[in-house]
């Protein structure tokens, strides 16, 4: 299977991407204040196919918040904190140093240990041991990167998570799930008919999506561990735009039971159908507010499409966006403080981010055909679909607009990204 790989545009750093990556990741920009960190190669590296330090370093670098220092040429490469000669790392301008080790426990088990040390104070900031199977090395490396990220930025992590996306290669559509760094793509569904709108259950165990495999849009829910595809909504007309409530108990969907698209809720098992909006306009693209009390959606009830909200149990809707002639595809940030959506900015469809308290809007992407904004689990990055050289590609931008990434698939179209929750 063709992998996508993040391409690093940043001239300062080229990660050694050795494993089979599917998405090509490209990074540009970066925070003005990047934390200089040395991620020392782990001891016992022969016990793993992949170098944990490289995976960790790539994650940190990709965030734009870290400057990962070159460790090659260092006389001493410690694998635990007692071996660290701090003066050498301070001379390299490191503020933090990570060291670690991989030990084989026999029976196919590995023990991965790591410590994050303050290079100046010579104190430990974090230390972890993980007992894992060999196929959990990458996930463990991402968890280590999340610990480092959290300790040094004060923000929760985002690396040990997955993304779902759709590819179109020739006439075939595929729904894929990959690690957030583009590695380990796994097929969830393939079809010769379109697949759109994947949505993660809040616990990350299921995907809802729309498949046209029966020649009409039907909403399915599929367990990622069980593999069974179950119909969530197959009513007359269109069934589309699934969005989970924060507690996972129900989904908002869009049906065209009458004529126009209207928003309904349905329990996660498919029962208890309830109509939420009743209008003569298009009401679509529902998304729950982070506390589950409201459903935000796109509607052309005022003429041009704008974003509105309605109580999640139904009621009267009120308008949310006033600036710009066309705003659609709302998505709540995990902290509930901001709303990402797509704005038609003079013919260019771009990712916009609105602070809900102040109403201030920032256009984060360049366009011209950006679609499907999706927040990282910590809200610091927004993943979205874009067009690159006439083909669908994925892109990501930090929520402050300073760091940009692109993911390519050399063989086909990539679209409809959805970033899942942190892995347990």
């Amino acid at each position: 299977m063709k992998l996508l790989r993040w391409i690093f545009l940043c001239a300062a750093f080229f990660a050694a991407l050795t494993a089979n990556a599917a998405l090509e990741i490209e990074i540009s920009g970066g925070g003005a204040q990047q934390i200089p960190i040395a991620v020392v190669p782990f001891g016992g590296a022969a016990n793993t196919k992949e170098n944990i330090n490289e995976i960790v370093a790539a994650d940190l670098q990709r965030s734009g918040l870290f400057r990962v220092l070159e460790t090659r040429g260092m006389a001493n490469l410690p694998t635990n904190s007692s071996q660290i000669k701090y003066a050498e790392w301070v001379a390299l301008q490191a503020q933090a140093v990570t060291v670690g080790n991989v030990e084989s426990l026999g029976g196919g088990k590995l023990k991965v240990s790591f410590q994050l040390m303050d290079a100046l104070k010579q104190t430990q900031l974090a230390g972890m041991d993980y007992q894992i199977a060999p196929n959990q090395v990458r996930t463990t490396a991402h968890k280590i990167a999340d610990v480092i990220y959290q300790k040094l930025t004060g923000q929760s992590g985002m690396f040990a998570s997955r993304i779902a996306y759709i590819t179109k290669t020739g006439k075939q559509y595929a729904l894929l799930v990959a690690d957030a760094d583009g590695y380990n793509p796994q097929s969830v569904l393939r079809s010769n008919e379109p697949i759109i709108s994947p949505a993660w259950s809040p616990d990350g165990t299921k995907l809802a999506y729309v498949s046209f495999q029966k020649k009409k849009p039907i909403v399915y829910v599929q367990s990622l561990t069980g593999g069974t595809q179950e119909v969530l909504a197959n009513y007359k007309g269109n069934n589309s735009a699934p969005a989970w409530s924060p507690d996972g108990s129900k989904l908002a969907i869009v049906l065209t039971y009458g004529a126009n698209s209207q928003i309904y809720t349905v329990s996660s098992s498919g029962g208890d159908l309830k109509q939420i909006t009743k209008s003569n306009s298009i009401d679509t693209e529902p998304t729950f507010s982070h506390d589950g009390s409201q459903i935000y959606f796109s509607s052309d009830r005022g003429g041009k499409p704008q974003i509105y909200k309605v109580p999640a149990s139904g009621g009267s809707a009120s308008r949310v966006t006033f600036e710009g002639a066309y705003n659609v595809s709302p998505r709540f940030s995990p902290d509930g403080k901001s709303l990402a959506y797509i704005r038609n900015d003079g013919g260019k469809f771009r990712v916009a981010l609105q602070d809900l308290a102040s109403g201030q809007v920032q256009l984060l992407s360049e366009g011209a055909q950006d679609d499907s904004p999706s927040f990282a689990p910590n809200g610091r990055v927004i993943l979205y679909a874009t067009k690159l050289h006439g083909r669908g590609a994925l892109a990501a931008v930090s929520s402050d607009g300073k760091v940009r990434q692109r993911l390519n698939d050399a063989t086909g179209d990539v679209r409809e990204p959805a970033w899942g929750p942190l892995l347990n």
Partner: protein
Amino acid sequence: MSTFSTKLFMALAISVVLVACKSTPIKPATVEDKSPSASTANTTPDAGAGADTGAIKEAAIDSSANGNDKNNPLKDPNNILSKRAIYFDYDSDAVKAEYRPIVEAHGKYLVAHPDTKMIVQGNTDERGTREYNLSLGQRRSVAVKKALNLLGVQDKQIETISYGEEKAVQNCGDEDCFAKNRRADVVYEGD
């Protein structure tokens, strides 16, 4: 680097032992195909965490019927019933006069065959978001349905759906290309 300094000040030595991290392998869907030519769907093997699942079942969920086209007025290229596309103006769901004969022919056929069912599929060009376009395409299919209803076709014979931009010719460079995507297709049950 104030955050960093603060964190240093608050430095804690934390040692967490996570025994046997949970792995969550992804299993692909088993899509059942009810079409006659399809092989029986099998449960797909567990992918296993980290595995690249080349062994995913590629469900043959797209089947086409092989009827005798010559005797079927719906398939006879000389019959107006073989014409299935109705094109629309930009940002419009009005059925234009030049497509009235096509709509009327299908209306007569459906009235004469009250057990025959049809799906009208609305389509849009690729400008705009996918779900919003799905809703826009729906307006076009509903417009065709309303025209058919006026000719006496029963509601139960027609289902209106939308493909939105999914069947659009991508990367249109000109108006002619966009115009081809602003379309409703009529599809008979069993087509």
